[in-house]
């Protein structure tokens, strides 16, 4: 038995499941070992390998913030083998967790800045952890704008907590791709709405996550507004197996997304080889 085996998952139990959209579910889990759960510490943006034993492992961001430790939360879109197996699990079922992995957001460096989050679809998950962390440390950060879009109102995650975000002083700008019955917020793609909101780049950091095509136009839009590369952060996704910089598949040149990322600034990305 190895004392420190980074491949060994911690058994954990599913305490709650939330159906976010037709194919996204949020799982709230607690480590079986109470002491390990109590002592578990992580940074917003760090990820976990979730195991469904007999099916395999997959990587997800811990989207609950370290300031709220009743459970660890993961939002899972059913697209592959492990994610579909996760969707078949019930409250009370056991999974394995290897975490925390990756670098996470540097919350200290972000202190004192105004923030704009730009998220699309399931890409809101890694932004949520940082957003809630900032809500819980509201005095440390300036004004916070969240621009969040999805294809339709039913495709927006975390709808049930939007009011709480707004109560916390967040300027929440929601958008969907097309008109929908009863929808009173914006209609249009995220980059279009970003241009309309036009958040000042002064003393502000932009943090974005979403589908690659959205990121591409959001990046162009942010530059247009006046954001420099070092003011833009994103969190990358790659196929991962070990999560600890050994198995060799998530590299972009010399950088491994699992240990050097998943959070990168565009300053860093612009110096890396173009292989996203």
């Amino acid at each position, binding site marked *: 038995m*190895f004392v420190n085996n980074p*491949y060994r998952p911690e058994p954990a139990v599913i305490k709650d499941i939330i159906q976010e959209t037709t194919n996204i579910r949020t799982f709230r889990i607690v480590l079986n070992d109470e002491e390990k759960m109590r002592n578990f510490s992580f940074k917003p943006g760090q990820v976990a390998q979730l195991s469904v*034993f*007999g099916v*395999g492992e997959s990587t997800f961001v811990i989207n609950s913030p370290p300031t709220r430790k009743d459970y660890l939360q993961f939002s899972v879109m059913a697209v592959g083998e492990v994610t579909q197996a996760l969707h078949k699990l019930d409250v009370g079922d056991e999974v394995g967790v290897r975490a925390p992995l990756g670098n996470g957001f540097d919350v200290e460096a972000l202190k004192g800045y105004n923030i704009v989050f730009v998220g699309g679809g399931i890409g809101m998950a890694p932004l949520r952890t940082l957003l809630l962390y900032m809500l819980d440390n509201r005095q440390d950060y300036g004004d916070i704008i969240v621009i969040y879009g999805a294809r339709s109102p039913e495709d927006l995650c975390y709808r049930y907590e939007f009011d709480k975000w707004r109560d916390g002083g967040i300027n929440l700008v929601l958008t969907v791709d097309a008109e929908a019955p009863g929808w009173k917020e914006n209609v249009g793609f995220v980059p279009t709405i970003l241009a309309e909101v036009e958040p000042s780049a002064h003393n502000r950091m932009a943090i974005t996550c979403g589908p690659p095509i959205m990121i591409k136009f959001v990046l162009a839009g942010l530059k247009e507004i006046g954001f420099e590369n070092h003011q833009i952060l994103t969190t990358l996704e790659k196929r991962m197996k*070990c999560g600890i910089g050994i198995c*060799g*598949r998530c590299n972009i040149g010399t950088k491994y997304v699992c240990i050097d990322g998943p959070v990168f600034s565009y300053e860093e990305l612009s110096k890396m*080889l173009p292989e*996203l």
Partner: protein
Amino acid sequence: MRGKTFIAHDELPEVLERLSKAMDVWIPTAINDEKYEIQFLPYQSDRLPVLDRQSTMPPKKVIFPQVETLLHFSRKKDENNPFKSHIKLEDEEEVSPVLVFGARPCDVRGFLVFDEVYLNGPYKDPYYAKRRKKTLFATLVCETSDNACFCSAVGSGPADQTGSDLWIIPVDGGYVIEALTERGENLMPEMGKDATEAQVAEARDVQEKVAGLRVGEADLTQNSDAFEDRFSDNEYWRDMAFKCISCGICTYVCPTCYCFNITDEAKDLDGERIRSWDSCMFNHFTREASGHNPRPSKLERYRNRIGHKFSYFPKKYKGMIACCGCGRCIRRCPVALDIRNVVLSLKKNKENVDVCK
């Protein structure tokens, strides 16, 4: 400290027999009568070592098995609830000491590349570490390079003793053995009788002769920047990878290729999490569940293989090339792709690039 020893050809089986009582002794041995394929296998009385040529496969699997169990899991029914079960996990057990007898300098160098990633990174790989620390190498000075060999071109050479514990030098009638490390020294009492002065002198001559050889003409160690300059030259990479059929054999025979996959195998309530060799030459290696693939064609995959070995790795690990120059990928490639040609062409302008389509 014992001096050099001598093992006569006909005494070698006895020596291996004795050694194998205390440890697992892996030798390069012929898989069939024709000696067509030479693999490292544990010594048995009916298995003779083949030391006059390079093995088909390197001894990589001795420390990094092609398939290994990372952990066992089993589901136990909840005593109070028939619809619930609990997971029980067990790690793999300890391993016995191992001697690899008859590896070549290139084979051992493969593990030095592994060590940087598996032992010296932010996370230590416990499965690799447990075997690595219990494995000794008795390495043969290499007199039998062929035209696919290029160990001197990647910063090593046919008499490179780095990473070895014992050194084997072929002389008239047998082998002279020399200890290189303390652990090797501890095995010297088992390594035959004391060598005669004449044998020691002959061994010194052989060692000096081989150490003076340059295997592989060009220098392939200074290509990090050339690779980066060439990275976005899709035409170059399309030409270089043109013949490649993405079979992956280059990665399987490679002593330095260390990438792996992790999968679960389960039956009923019990199963294993296993890791197995994987290949960056396969499409699925980087393909994500969404369907997005950062290396969607063989162009990007072949580029990554070259980049990893000759640019990314030396940039990360003090200039060390993640290639030991053993030449196995050249000998085994079904379409005769030659990695030396690709690396050498990095610095050439378009007109002079040698593409054998």
